[in-house]
């Protein structure tokens, strides 16, 4: 039975191996003769391609049908591996497999439709399957080492997805992603080793969490874990890779990145955090960082012009809630009667809600770029509107349930913070809804010329996720579930939940009716380039002069590529018919993240075009005068002078002997 679980989760990697070992003749012929790609999924479909979209299905079945708390102990694997399909793992596994399944089928239609060549498609599937394999396998891991292994497989493979179209901005995005991923790995490593040490060498999460709760260096470990896995989760201020990487990756990859991959950081937090032990400082930091993210990222997102970058900011904003809730759980003191359990359940529900919704939103972006029939387009736009309303916590959606549960656990914050949070959480619904309305406005009204209509393989997965979003509250109400009141499904609750989105709608309507040009000008003034804080770093790091705007990817890869989708640099103001940014004075009420707007457009992306180095920070690191001086001093010893040094030592030794 246990092996069944492993087999199910291993299926993506098995297909990956098949892909790597298959001599795919269609690839070469397609390259050689430049044949059209339309009919290559005909009778000669390679086996790996036929199987690839199905890869997450066994995992989904395993999550649904394998018995709970199925345990598999493999002491010979890594440093002793323990797999268990507990409740958390089942929830995460079901969500992850669902989103991957949808994204896989979507990719099956999306890649040919956007004119990817077979070799590119093959490469995409390779990274896609590797990322999926890591993501699925890490979920049932109950020990730190195996979790880290699969987490790393997932993180590093996702790099291949981010730079799938290797244009200059995408490569820059990939560098930012990889640099932060590695940084996260290293910090997380330190945290995990420390936790392992506290647990006297036990690598299981259970032992480590217990030891952590009682351990003397709990806060130090917590900081490391918060930073290490907060990077994956998009915790402010470590979120900078999200707005860069999401637009860079192909749409199905963005969907999984934002839908499920960023949730893996939360999964580790759920497993390892010492909940309810009154960790005041890290907890408060998480709450504050969460609030900053929720509002700051929403405001920064409002100024975006690329819908995928906007969605990425929305993810940062939504992950702010996760950080907020996690912070509350850390601050709370179970000893004095605080109930942690509902909070953890709330986190689980929120994860599923956000995974389904954000996955569907990303998939929808790709749909609107194909040439849909008018009726179909209306349906898609309507669906995206509903998804946006769900994110904002509108009535009868999964968002409402998640928000209601979150509100239910606000008393954990204590008397000092609770009133503020009671106001801020509903208020975030307004900003979220505004953000999503802006998103809808940014979507193209008609498909790109030359793109065929979206095939069913793209529409059905999207519709499936949309349906899942509505089914979630129903499932929660099911046998053994919540009472309708807990989920806010009372008349009053429904009304309250509908208020923030309606307010946002009204605000947007007013802005549109009264002064659209002022709104646009304001937006242009405040525009935050994707990767906001990263550009701040650029101000302090002396980097070699780079072209302010790398050439847009144009169709280096293919003639039907989606430059719009992939262009990460902020579109030049001239295109928008707005005044150049430089002439626009900074208003006083500038949101926090956008102060560097002015210099940014000149310095912008500092992380481009340094050949051969991944992280331009590194070469310049050595150029700091003091470090340089010390290291250069040592490196001078590399010559024959060391021989001399030895001789001196010898003489000293001899003298001492005599």
């Amino acid at each position, binding site marked *: 039975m246990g092996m069944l679980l492993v087999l199910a989760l291993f299926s993506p990697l098995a297909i990956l191996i098949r892909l*790597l*070992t*298959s*001599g*795919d*003749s269609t*690839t*070469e*012929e397609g*390259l*050689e003769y430049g044949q059209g790609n339309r009919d290559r999924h005909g009778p000669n479909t390679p086996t790996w391609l036929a199987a690839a979209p199905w890869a997450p299905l066994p995992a989904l079945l395993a999550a649904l049908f394998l018995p709970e708390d199925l345990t598999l102990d*493999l*002491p*010979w*694997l*890594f*440093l002793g591996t323990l797999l268990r399909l507990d409740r958390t793992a089942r929830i995460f596994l079901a969500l992850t497999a669902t989103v991957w399944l949808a994204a896989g089928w979507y990719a099956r239609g999306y890649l040919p439709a956007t004119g990817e060549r077979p*070799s590119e498609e*093959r*490469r995409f599937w*390779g990274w896609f399957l590797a990322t999926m394999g890591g993501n699925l396998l890490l979920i049932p891991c109950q020990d730190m*080492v195996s979790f*880290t292994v699969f987490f*790393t497989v997932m993180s*590093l493979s996702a790099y291949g997805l981010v*730079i799938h179209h*290797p244009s200059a901005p995408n490569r820059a995005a990939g560098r930012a992603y990889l640099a932060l991923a*590695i*940084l996260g*790995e*290293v*910090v997380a*490593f*330190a945290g995990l*080793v*420390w936790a*392992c*040490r506290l647990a006297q060498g036990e690598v299981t999460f259970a032992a480590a969490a217990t030891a952590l709760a009682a351990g003397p260096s709990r806060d*130090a470990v917590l900081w490391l874990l918060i930073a290490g896995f907060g990077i994956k989760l998009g915790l402010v201020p470590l979120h900078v890779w999200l707005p860069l990487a999401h637009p860079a990756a192909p749409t199905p990859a963005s969907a999984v990145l934002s839908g499920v991959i960023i949730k893996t950081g939360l999964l580790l937090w759920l497993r390892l955090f010492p909940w309810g032990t009154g960790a005041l400082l890290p907890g408060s930091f998480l709450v504050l960082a969460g609030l900053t993210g929720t509002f700051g990222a929403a405001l920064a997102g409002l100024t975006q012009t690329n819908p995928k970058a906007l969605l990425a900011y929305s993810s940062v904003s939504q992950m702010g809630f996760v950080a907020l809730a996690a912070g509350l759980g850390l601050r709370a003191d179970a000893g004095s009667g605080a109930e942690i359990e509902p909070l953890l359940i709330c986190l689980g529900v929120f994860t599923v809600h956000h995974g389904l919704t954000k996955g569907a939103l990303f998939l929808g972006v790709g749909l609107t770029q194909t040439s849909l029939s008018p009726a179909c387009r209306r349906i898609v736009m309507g669906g995206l509107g509903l998804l946006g309303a769900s994110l904002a916590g509108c009535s009868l959606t999964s968002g409402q349930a998640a928000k209601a549960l979150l509100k239910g656990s606000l008393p954990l914050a204590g008397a000092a913070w609770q009133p503020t949070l009671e106001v801020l959480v509903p208020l975030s619904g307004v900003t979220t809804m505004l953000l999503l309305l802006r998103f809808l406005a940014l979507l193209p009204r008609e498909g790109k010329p030359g793109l065929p209509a979206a095939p069913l393989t793209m529409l059905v997965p999207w519709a499936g996720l949309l349906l899942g979003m509505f089914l979630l509250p129903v499932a929660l109400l099911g046998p053994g579930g919540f009472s309708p009141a807990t989920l806010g499904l009372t008349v009053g609750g429904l009304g309250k939940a509908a208020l923030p989105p309606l307010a946002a709608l009204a605000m947007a309507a007013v802005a549109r009716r009264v002064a659209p040009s002022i709104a646009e000008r304001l937006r242009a003034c405040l525009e935050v380039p994707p990767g906001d804080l990263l550009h701040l770093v650029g101000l302090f790091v002396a980097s070699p002069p780079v072209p302010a705007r790398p050439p847009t990817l144009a169709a280096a890869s293919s003639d039907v590529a989606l430059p719009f989708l992939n262009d990460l640099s902020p579109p030049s103001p001239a295109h928008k018919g707005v005044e150049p940014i430089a002439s626009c004075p900074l208003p006083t009420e500038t949101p926090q993240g956008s102060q560097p707007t002015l210099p940014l457009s000149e310095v912008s992306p500092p992380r481009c075009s340094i050949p*051969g*180095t*991944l*992280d331009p920070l*590194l070469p310049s690191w*050595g150029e700091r005068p003091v470090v340089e001086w010390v*290291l250069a001093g*040592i*490196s001078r*010893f*590399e*010559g*024959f002078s*060391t*021989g001399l040094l*030895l001789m001196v*030592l*010898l003489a000293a*030794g*001899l003298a001492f*002997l005599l």
Partner: protein
Amino acid sequence: MNWYKWLPVLMIASSAGPAIAIFFLAEESHGWRTLWNMLGAVLKIVLMGVLFYEVHLGREIAFHVPLMPGLTFKLHADSLSLLFAGLSTVLWFLTTIYAIGYLEHSPHRSRFFGFFSLCVSTTIGIAMAGNLITLLIFYEFLSLTTWPLVVHRGNPTSIAAGNRYLVYTLGGGALLLLGVVWLQTLVGEIDFVARGGLSALEAGTHNDLRLIFTMLVLGFGVKAALVPLHGWLPGAMVAPAPVSALLHAVAVVKAGAFGIVRVVYDIFGIEFCERLGVLEPLAGLAALTILFGSWRALTQDDLKRRLAYSTVSQVSYIVLGAAVFGPKATIGGIVHLVHQGLMKITLFFCAGNFAEELGLHRVSELDGVGRRMPWTMAAFTVGALGMIGVPPVAGFVSKWYLGWGALEAGMPWVIAVLALSSLLNAGYFLPILYAGWFAERTSPWPATHGAPFPGTSIHFPPDSPANMGGPSATETCANPPAKLPREPLMPPTRGKHRASHEAGAPTAIVFGSEGSPSVPGGLSPASTSTAAWEISPLLLAPPLVTAGLSLLAGIFAGSSFSPLYWARFIMMGEY
């Protein structure tokens, strides 16, 4: 009379014997030389297996010859010596295969293989040495036998590097000799025993002991390339690839690290070292070396030099493990002896393959090499990720235990060193991986099948087996392998030829070699043929095996066949 007491002697003889035989072979007797080499390598592996079995049973294996009163030549086999000897044996076997493929068409082969085998004998001697005197003898021998290999190419650069190498190692050896003599006068002859034998000395001698410790560590530190004694290592990279791979990644630098481990654990005893207060400075030196080596590696463009600085950095993990007081750090350091050897030899094999097949010596030339040589690049990737400490490759296990041990010893700063070093490692390895897998090739390869010795005047006619990638090219064309590189290759060069699809797929396309003086024009037999293997199997198999081993050592770390298991076994004796 126990038969097994001769096992350590046989271990040494199994490569020293072939070495002597090879010295007397004529240059052309390729077959005999290969036979002797492989015979010695296989015999040594068999002996090694027997030894492991015997030691695991707990048998005492020691061999004594009195040299003079108070001086004994002693060989023994304990668990620690087996770890090092086992590593050398397995890697010697693989490197011999690699060297046969790499060097069989170059001059002075008998000299090369003779000294190569002698080096391994002395390495085994170092591993099996039972007391300091014996260790010292073999240590000096190692310096002398590696020198001919460093200067093998005979050009001015190699001679200069060789001279520097001699100055460093002989200086270190002299320092070591002083330390050993001093220790001998102080306490008489001492064998290597677990937990050390000096702790009973009265407090009055402690200052002397501290000084002796310093001398011994610095003496060994020359070969272990501790900063600032590492200057010889990057220069010694002019040696042929197999030498860099086995000696400079494994045997020589490990001999130094192994010596330090012996001094700390089996002469002084780790607990006594802790009391003397000599561990913290050693840990500081190791940490400095780790960071300094990584920092220097960042700026190297020459691939082998970058790897050399990486070695400087990585070998100090072993020293760090010895210098941090605590069983977990001990495990981490000792297991890194094996892990680093596996990963680094992989990297050097791959670097040799790039240079041999395509004439690539610099990191900036590696763009797109992953499409031309996917298997080699895959092996390189495993090695590089392992060096960074990415799980599940073996390097992660070492780092995990080192970090754990450091926390146990109350030295959290070591974690910071490990983390910073990982970041730096990522900084200099990931660009190579990026160039290999993702970057587009825009220029032709510098050379295809370049002569292994650019410094010499030997060239081969275009149709000789040397230019065809060895005897394999013709064989393998008839039997194309089932496995294919992931990406077909499409760089724009005029010498491009498409693989024949009927033959089932050879995709590794050989380019016309404008840069090679031996091939007139762009169309030579080498450029029209399509090699089914990206490089001769003799050169491809060793890195694949070592990459696989370093992966397996990480994945099955918890099993009882892993280096980690043996390192735990060693640790049991030391605390």
